[in-house]
């Protein structure tokens, strides 16, 4: 019960964050020198078309009088929050923004998921290893690698990797390795993750494992790049955290009790080292959303990040607003998930106060 209450509290606290973010977006899109009308129609627009567009955008009333700013603000907030995003104006004219975003979502989610998982699977063990063998050559290599890895811009890493994977590059064999896949562009396998099997006249969806494998292999390079900066962070923090907890008195006690090294590391060191790692893992989502824009651009993945960039190039206000809202929602969701995870890992972190 207590936990549910805590969850509810966190959810309520998320509401203002969403509101601030949307207000910020509104301020930039509607109050800056930026003029959506010129962006959509060009400079010499037919006045009648201009009037229609202005009405559709909610800038003017049908009789031509301008809509007061606060009503625009209210409409923007209400429409966005209720997922009523309107139509795209430039990128694909006339298409509903909701559908557009929904279509682009799977690629980004797939990319984000694997980049987090890969970063965790590589970064944390490396960090633990470096911490447990501090001041050996292995530690130095891992730490230094982590530091340099972190300093690499995602987009540059993506450019280099995509170049090496392309025809004639040193890694071009990857595309034909085990299962043939593409690495640039969007794989069709993503759309066909579920096959269907006829079972007594009804078709039942079952996962198509071949396509899962193809989709995984297709996303692997991009996910590796996207996860890179978080990986560097995890190595560094993991190392410090292990060093801190390994010298703690309770480890001494555990040793005195005669626990095996394996148990000590698994149950006490690793678990306590996870506490400082959590914000880093969650902070990754900030990095991921920013990074996904560039990685999707370089790898030509048709995801939300790519859509956002096209919307920015074309000044397509409805898409920008909608995607910003979706990204804010994702961030708020993971922030809440982080606080919940804290309470699971470390029961001492109070359900009452919570963390910030």
């Amino acid at each position, binding site marked *: 019960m207590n936990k549910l209450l805590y969850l509810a509290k966190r959810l309520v606290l998320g509401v*203002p*964050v*969403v509101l*601030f*973010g949307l*207000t*910020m977006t509104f301020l*930039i*899109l509607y109050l*800056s*020198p*930026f003029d959506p009308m010129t962006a959509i129609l060009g400079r010499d627009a037919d006045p009648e078309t201009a009037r229609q567009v202005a009405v559709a955008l909610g800038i003017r009333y049908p009789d031509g009088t301008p809509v007061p700013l606060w009503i625009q603000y209210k409409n923007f907030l209400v429409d966005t929050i209720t997922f009523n995003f309107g139509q795209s104006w430039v990128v694909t004219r006339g298409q509903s923004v909701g559908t557009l975003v929904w279509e682009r979502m799977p690629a980004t989610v797939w990319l984000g998921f694997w980049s987090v998982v890969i970063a965790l699977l590589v970064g944390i063990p490396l960090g633990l290893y470096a911490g447990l063998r501090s001041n050996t050559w292995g530690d130095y290599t891992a730490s230094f690698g982590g*530091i*340099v890895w*972190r*300093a*690499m*811009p*995602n*987009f*540059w890493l993506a*450019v*280099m990797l*995509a*170049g*090496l994977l*392309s025809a*004639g*590059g*040193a890694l071009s064999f990857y595309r034909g390795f085990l299962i043939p896949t593409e690495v640039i562009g969007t794989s069709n396998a993503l759309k066909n993750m579920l096959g269907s099997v006829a079972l007594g006249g009804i078709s039942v969806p079952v996962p198509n494992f071949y396509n899962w494998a193809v989709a995984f292999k297709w996303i692997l390079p991009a996910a590796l790049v996207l996860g890179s*900066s978080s990986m560097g*962070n995890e190595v*560094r*923090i993991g190392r*410090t955290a292990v060093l801190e907890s390994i010298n703690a008195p309770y480890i001494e006690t555990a040793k005195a009790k005669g626990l095996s090294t394996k148990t000590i590391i698994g149950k006490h060191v690793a678990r306590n080292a996870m506490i*400082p790692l959590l*914000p*880093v893992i969650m*902070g990754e989502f*900030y*990095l991921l*959303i*920013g*990074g996904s*824009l*560039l990685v999707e*651009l*370089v790898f030509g993945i048709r995801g939300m990040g790519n859509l*956002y*960039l096209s919307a*920015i*190039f074309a*000044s397509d206000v409805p898409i*920008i607003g909608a*995607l*910003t809202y979706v*990204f*804010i929602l994702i*961030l*708020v969701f993971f922030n809440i998930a982080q606080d919940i995870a804290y309470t699971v890992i470390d029961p001492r972190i109070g359900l009452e106060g919570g963390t910030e």
Partner: protein
Amino acid sequence: MCATVTDTTDERDLRDETTLRDRVLANPMPALTWSAVALGLLALEFGAFLAGVLLVLDSALVGVSALVEVTVGLFSQAGAKTVLGFQQSASGVLDGFRSTANSLPTLLSRETIPNQGYQTSADGAWENTFMGLEPGIAWAIRATLVYVYAGAIAYWAFRGWDVFRTHYRNADWSPRDDVVDRLRDHRWAQFGIIVVLVFTTMALFAPALGPTTVGQNIESPYSHEIQYFDSESGEVETAFVGDANFNSKSKGNGNQNVGPMSYDDFGRFHPFGTLTNGRDLFTFIAMGARISLTVSALSIIFAGLIAIIMSLASAYYKGIVDLATILAADGITSIPQLLLLLMVAMAFQGHWLAGVFNGGFLLALVFGATSWPGLWRAVRGPALQVSEEEWIDAARSFGQRPSVTMRKHMLPYVLPYLLIYGSMSVGSIVIALSALSFIGSGLGINPPTPAWGRAISMGREYVSTQSWHIAFIPGTMIVVLVTGLNAFGDGIRDAIDPESEGGAEEEAAAGGTAG
């Protein structure tokens, strides 16, 4: 190393009451020696130094008047026009001085050690180069001298502090001595300082460092001519730089490549090879370093200023001011920074502000406006803490003005924290800046002004061809610079605040925006 002056009580009293001027006059020798060498070093590069000062003045003038203009423009268009007119005429006058300053001879200029020349026959001697050497060697000599000079200047500046500390400071010891001493055996920080110095030198000496100039090679290649030995006709011929560039492209396939450390068909040396349009990559990168470092420095200064004002005001007044600050910061941080940057950059496209400093000024403003919440969060704690102290209460009851209290009694306590977090987040600004230039489409630094991200974007298709250098070298530059900046930040933190350990928050600050 520490002060060795033997103290009698009288002497100490005397020293405590004297000004720096008196102390120098009482014992002028060390100061004179130091200044003589410093003046000598300066004289070697006087023209460039003067030009640099004028450039900074000019930039400050344009920047400040741009801000004034925006503010005035809110109220009256005519007022804004007047400001703009003043800005243009004043900037014109400074430009005149600058060209005079630039014409003064300096040791490290391309006129003293020229590297652009031509051969008179296939294996003949080089004309117009330094002592008839090969252009590559002449360039290497000049580049080495630039770095030796920069090293000497840096060392001498440090010596100056040492001389001051040993001979002229009132106190025998100050906490700053400890800070420096801690840096003395901090190898990681020293690596960072060296990297930062190397890149600062590259930025400051960009015009002298490149094998050619931005004006000649990149901005107006069709208003400059070069002479070269044409092996087909067997004679020395003249060509526009633009035409020479056209025939020196690096496009990966066949003979279309001028790699690092090689000559093109026009006898021009390219330390880092050429770009896809035949321009010299080293010149491009050196000028790009100037842009990157200036914009990053400006951004962090803007962000730091906003953060410090916000944190002091909210800690002093609390209540509604504090709440408003929190709301603003939360609004900004709820959107990932790159999205915010892109949105603002798009909103200001075509606006005249986007033309100031080739778009760099607007970018610095945007970075400042979007990255202050991170810094603010870092200094908010210390600011709140100090605002609880009794002396703040005392100052208030004593009737001191709030601004004075904040500046005199709160700022000194908060500043070190700002320095630490600020230096740790510069790296992420460098990355984000190059990311914007990489995306291009009017979002980053305006072409043709060099920007590292644009070079990477140009080389995208050629990574696994023989023209790999186009994307690889600028990227490596970013990695080295950001690693150095992070090391520098770590060093500052360890030196100022030795108790602290790299915590999660700092890492997040350093990781900042993903590029």
